[in-house]
């Protein structure tokens, strides 16, 4: 059963002990500020995300997401400003098309869509950021550890 092998490789024998490692690419002006607001509001949410701050969601090269998954991340979360509210006016619009295509590609290659999530979180949505992280972590927990680790020798 490949899930068992993947669990063993990830260092935790028991599914209950495994904690997913999720890389979060956040845009500086909206999503990162929203995450910061969640922090200053002392909201509790799952500590499974590792945040990488970029100036804009449009700056995110699809290769970052692919590399994160190939290197073994259990999940990737990308968040930007709401369409129409981009600090650089149109960055997130280009990003939207790119991410839609990337998600379809990853699904075709057999990477579960529950691992990769795109969303828009604004700077004032601290509560929502915490809720989004919980949603992403729950979805990733359901699909288990990243199986690429077991075949990538």
């Amino acid at each position, binding site marked *: 059963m490949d899930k068992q092998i993947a669990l063993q490789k990830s260092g935790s024998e028991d599914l209950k002990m495994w904690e997913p490692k999720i890389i979060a690419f956040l845009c500086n002006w909206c999503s990162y500020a929203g995450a910061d607001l969640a922090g200053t509001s002392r909201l509790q949410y799952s500590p499974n995300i590792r945040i990488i701050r970029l100036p804009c969601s449009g700056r995110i090269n*699809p*290769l970052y997401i*692919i*590399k994160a998954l*190939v*290197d073994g991340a259990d999940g990737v979360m990308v968040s930007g400003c709401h*369409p*129409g509210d981009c600090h650089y006016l*149109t960055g997130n*619009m*280009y990003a*939207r*098309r*790119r*991410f*839609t*295509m*990337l*998600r*379809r*590609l*990853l*699904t*075709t*290659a*057999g*990477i*579960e*869509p*529950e691992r990769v*999530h*795109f*969303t*828009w979180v604004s700077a004032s949505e601290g509560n929502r950021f915490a809720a*989004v992280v919980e*949603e*992403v972590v*729950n*979805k990733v927990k*359901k*699909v288990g550890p990243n*199986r*690429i680790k077991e*075949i*990538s*020798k």
Partner: protein
Amino acid sequence: MSFKNQREEIIAICKNLLDEGKANLILGFADGPTGEGSVPFFIRKKDEVDDIKWDDACTTNLAKYLLEKKEGAAIIAKPCDARAIVMYMAENQIDRSKIYIIGVECAGMKDKNGAPPPGCLECTLRTPPIFDILVKNDNSSVQGAVNTHDREEEPGFADKLARFQKEISKCILCYSCRQACYGCYCETCFMDRNMPNWLPNELDIGSKMMFHLGRTMHLAGRCVECGACERACPSSVKIRYLIKELTDFCEELYGYRAGINPDEIPALTAFDQNDREVGFLGGEDDGSCCGSKG
């Protein structure tokens, strides 16, 4: 029989071009070294024109040679090659006014075993979307229009990953597909860069995944479905199904197919306020989540 007629017409056109000075280099095909198959042929003198080959072995996509020779070139373009030329125009890689396109109608090619090569089986395009002069094909039947991508039998995720791994494990990272592809013309490919370094020091299956997923993303919305990648592969990696999924998806979402309409802006360099957010959190459900949606 129609290939023979087309060949005579092409030879007449080429001789004319060289005489009138409209082109000083013509990109076409010649016999392969064993007499079968075809090789790209660069014609500069009038007495070379009679060596032109035109039949169902002329599979190569010649459009990429235009990048080296941007002025004074003529090209014998099948519909898929012409699509690549349209994309070069859209991406500002060539100047339309400086090249002469001999468009040739195509009913499909054959590989050395007599079967349709990758790209021909699903092709529905007989006439090049762009040309300066058209060489018609009086053969009314079109080989293609067979839909080999059956949506109803959507395989499960274990099968999708198994298929991907099976194809990728054959890959030897020779980059033939990259060299053959019209769309891969970056001076330094991302695989060859070290700032940032996308590959680990020891190449493994993860590197192959990076290459194929990365290259497919770079071609998202740009693939002209010529099949050059799969033809070029020495390891018979059936890689086209990945990009075909994106090509169909791009048409579904944005109504855009690369290289068909010279006036269209490529889909991923444009946006619309009302773009669909398929699969986004809080967006459209893409129905591909196996398991709970909770």
